[in-house]
């Protein structure tokens, strides 16, 4: 590690942190985009002159349910991967 000429240990750690952070930001952006699209579709049927309170309530609930769904699917997908791995070995 000491004779690493191009990167010091600290620099490497910083690089790893940056990579992790950029991935987290990209993930959050993707979630935000999808959530906006899905909840607009579900909650705003006929766009009026403003978002009325029932639409706002719907959007808030929709966001929470979308996250619930995301977590549930994450679990289901993880389980499936485990099962497929078990079948291969």
């Amino acid at each position, binding site marked *: 590690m000491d004779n690493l000429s191009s990167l010091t240990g600290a620099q490497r750690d910083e690089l790893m942190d940056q990579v992790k952070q950029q*991935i987290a930001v990209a993930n959050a952006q993707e979630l935000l985009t999808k959530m906006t699209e899905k909840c607009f579709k579900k909650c705003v049927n006929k766009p009026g002159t403003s978002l009325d309170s029932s639409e706002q309530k719907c959007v808030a609930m929709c966001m929470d349910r979308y996250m619930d769904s995301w977590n549930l*699917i994450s679990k289901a*997908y993880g389980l499936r991967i485990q099962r497929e791995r078990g079948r291969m070995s």
Partner: protein
Amino acid sequence: MSDSFDSFTSGLDTKGAEKELQEFLMVEKQKAQFNAQIHEFNDICWDKCVDKPSNKLDSKTETCLSNCVDRFIDVSLLITNRFAQMLQKSGGM
């Protein structure tokens, strides 16, 4: 993406540190792919399973969501296998 990762990591000097970085990037890449897949499943299965958003996901919706993931993977595997067979039969491979 993997190409740029490879040339990026091979530009570093020491073998051990290079390997550690490479492993780190591989794990992060796998995690990112897993996440991307969940975004895709959630996109598809949300439309199939979720009606009007309410106070919580009811158990019927939850079952639908997890079934949706499994059946989508089943369809993907089935189509992949059948497509491979089609290619073989037509002498495409």
